[in-house]
């Protein structure tokens, strides 16, 4: 008997002890020495166990099977394990989603919704609202982040050390407090393109002087105001607070600056308002 002449039917007879002596001895030899035949025999033994568990064996084969594969405790335990695997696989195959472990959460939700259509509209509305809120929240966070970054940049730009330097691409503008401007028109700023920064000179006309000032810059119509703390006044003939702003943040429109004098404990004491218009 050659290896390639070993059929499944022959192997099955071998497993059930139905082969004639010569064939059986040859098969035993192949089983012990030929790895391919060995695996085929053991694989077919599993199929035979499946057939027994399905009650597909005829009476004679069933008796032969029991006398060989279901006598010792070890054999019975293996039968139970095989039965458990088979039962699980059959249950999985018959379930609506055989590959349950790999089914996504979305697929399960979709299946559930198909079973309960009355929940679809409320859930869809809830999801849309949640998405809008989430996007709004993200945008808000992004805006907040940008706002803080701008304020940090302004604080850096207006620190005493920075103010001592005079960069080449900077243009000064003198503003007057709104309270003393009376009927005079607003100061118009036309910022040349090559200019990177503007320096606003804000005269403090009140008698009360403060060690520290804080400016709040607001573009009229925008909700966003930028606060620049720790400003100090200079008294070169006029008592003035200098405020530098990046040219790129000043787009066409009306601007308002609230300058507040702070006492040593940081509390606001009095303030002045300034305004200007960017025309380019």
């Amino acid at each position: 008997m050659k290896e390639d002449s070993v059929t499944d039917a022959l192997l099955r007879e071998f497993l059930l002890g139905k082969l004639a002596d010569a064939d059986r001895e040859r098969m035993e030899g192949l089983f012990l020495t030929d790895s391919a035949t060995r695996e085929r025999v053991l694989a077919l033994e599993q199929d035979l166990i499946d057939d027994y568990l399905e009650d597909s064996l005829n009476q004679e084969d069933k008796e032969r099977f029991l006398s060989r594969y279901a006598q010792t405790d070890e054999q019975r335990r293996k039968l139970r394990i095989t039965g458990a695997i088979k039962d699980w696989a059959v249950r999985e195959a018959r379930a609506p989603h055989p590959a349950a472990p790999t089914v996504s959460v979305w697929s399960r939700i979709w299946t559930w919704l198909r079973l309960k259509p009355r929940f679809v509209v409320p859930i869809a509305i809830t999801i849309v609202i949640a998405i809008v809120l989430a996007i709004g929240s993200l945008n808000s966070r992004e805006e907040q982040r940008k706002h803080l970054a701008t304020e940090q940049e302004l604080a850096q730009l207006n620190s005493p050390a920075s103010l001592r330097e005079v960069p080449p691409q900077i243009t000064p503008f003198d503003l007057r407090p709104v309270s003393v401007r009376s009927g005079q028109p607003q100061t118009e700023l036309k910022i040349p393109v090559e200019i990177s920064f503007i320096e606003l000179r804000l005269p403090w006309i009140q008698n009360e002087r403060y060690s520290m000032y804080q400016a709040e810059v607001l573009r009229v119509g925008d909700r966003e105001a930028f606060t620049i703390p720790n400003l100090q006044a200079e008294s070169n003939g006029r008592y003035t607070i200098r405020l530098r702003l990046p040219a790129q943040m000043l787009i066409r429109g009306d601007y308002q600056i609230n300058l507040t004098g702070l006492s040593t404990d940081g509390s606001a004491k009095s303030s002045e308002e300034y305004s200007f218009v960017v025309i380019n």
Partner: protein
Amino acid sequence: MARDSAVPTENFEEILAWLNPDREVAATMYVQLRHDLAKTFTFRGCADPEGLTDEVFDRVGKKVLEVRPTYVGDPRLYFRAVANNLIKEDLKRAKTQVSLEEPELREPTTTESDEDNAEDMEECLRSCLQKLSAENRKLIVEYFAKEKQAKIDHRSELAKQFGISVENLRVKVYRIRVSLQGCIERCLKGKVQQK
């Protein structure tokens, strides 16, 4: 089966050397040969495959020093020949014993102990299935999807999908099953030891 002695270390080493000059390979072959001889006894319907396998190794161990120098061929066939003699002796012994009634072939039934272990079995099964790849889990499910007559066509179709023969599909599934069964057995033994 009663056995009178264990194999001396020297003879055991001789058996390993006979199976393969590389000791590690020989050790693997030794383990597999034990398993396969026990299976052979099972195929022949012997009552105590493990005990008979021990007896084969005892007998070969006692003779290996004198047999090996002159034996020509695969040593595993010598083991098989010894096993064959043992089966004949077993059958002869059985014939001389008067049996008052036919041996009863009992179908495995669910005992109280099995019921106790059902929960462990389920837990071990779940745990071991998680260790299989998704692809192998799916293959096992597909392989068992149909029963009785319908499964023949189904497995043939499945083999076509993989581009392999039904025989190779069976072996492919067998390898997964061996790994899964081994895992479950180890898991169950672990649970027994914990109790």
